[in-house]
């Protein structure tokens, strides 16, 4: 997992610098935001010429997922005082996946902290390395770094739209692409991505909710947090509706 996190961090560092952020800004993002999807989105929107507000909103919306992990890990951690904000900052896809995959809460506690701290250290070291490489490369287009940014987002969304039960996600993905491209000529940069999120909110309210199975949708992450999938921040924790057998008719 650490090697995968490291390589992913190199990608972020290089693409962030290619998007026009400085090395200190790139490093600050990994230290303070520490959520891969939000970080890629933030630099992606700014790199495409989007307004600051659009970049903040997109990063924030992608960070909502981490908020939903809190109730899954908080009972395991029982963090109080200064440990609570620390635990919150380390609440990401991987640490949640590892912590909730354990049957024994004590093992889950160890898993959360080891994974969270380990990923944090690797992610930040390799972000710096990537930023230095990106800075040395120069013109991002010449090395195809703009295409690499698109590929990075494709890799982030891929596990969420493939596999069984992901039909709703596929429809939402297609709708989001259409909306984003259709409005691009008419609205400022950064806004198309936010408008695409409306597709998901509409779909979330229209789609038939899963039948009661004795547990809620978020619990599915607990039962299927397989480690090979927990390779890098934000990409991989299985989504509730991908896994819920009742979720997608």
């Amino acid at each position, binding site marked *: 997992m650490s090697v995968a996190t490291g390589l992913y961090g190199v990608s972020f560092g290089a693409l962030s610098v290619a998007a026009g952020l400085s090395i200190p800004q790139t490093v600050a993002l990994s230290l303070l935001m520490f959520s891969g999807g939000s970080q890629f989105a933030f630099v992606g929107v700014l790199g495409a010429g989007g307004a600051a507000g659009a970049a903040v909103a997109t*990063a924030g919306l992608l960070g909502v997922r981490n908020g939903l992990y809190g*109730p899954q890990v908080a009972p395991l951690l029982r963090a109080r005082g200064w440990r*609570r904000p620390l635990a919150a900052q380390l609440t990401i896809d991987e640490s949640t996946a590892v912590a909730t995959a354990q049957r024994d809460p004590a093992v889950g506690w160890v898993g959360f902290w080891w994974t969270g701290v380990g990923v944090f250290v690797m992610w930040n070291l390799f972000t710096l390395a990537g930023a230095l490489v990106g800075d040395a490369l120069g013109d991002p287009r010449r090395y195809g770094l703009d295409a690499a940014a698109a590929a990075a987002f494709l890799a982030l*969304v891929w596990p969420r739209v493939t596999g069984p039960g992901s039909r709703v996600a596929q429809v939402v993905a297609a709708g*989001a692409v259409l909306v984003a491209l259709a409005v691009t000529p008419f609205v400022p940069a950064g806004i198309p991505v936010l408008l695409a999120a409306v597709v998901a909110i509409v779909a979330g309210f229209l789609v038939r909710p899963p039948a009661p199975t004795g547990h809620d*949708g978020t619990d599915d992450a607990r039962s299927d947090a397989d480690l090979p999938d927990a390779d890098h921040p934000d990409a991989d924790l299985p989504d509730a509706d991908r896994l819920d057998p009742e979720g997608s008719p």
Partner: protein
Amino acid sequence: MSDAVTWVALLVACAVCFALKLAGHLVPEHWLAKPRVARTAALVTVALLSALVAVQAATTGRALVADARLPALAVAAVALALRAPFVVVVVLAAVTAAVLRAMGMP
């Protein structure tokens, strides 16, 4: 955008992301445990990432553009279908675009 504006946006975005994480640890569990909330949040993630793919691959400013990024994205998709690791996917896309541009494609 000036460096100062970028810093302000960066710090605000970091504060928002941290507040979301912390809120998950502070609010009562049943508030967030509604299946519809979890499903919608998951779909919002899918929509944002998908839109970012489209915008990064096929737009420049307000123009729709078809250039070397599209074949690079196709190569990335094939690599993902073959279960290649993240960094391999990203590097293959970059190399594809770089080679096509060196051959004269925009």
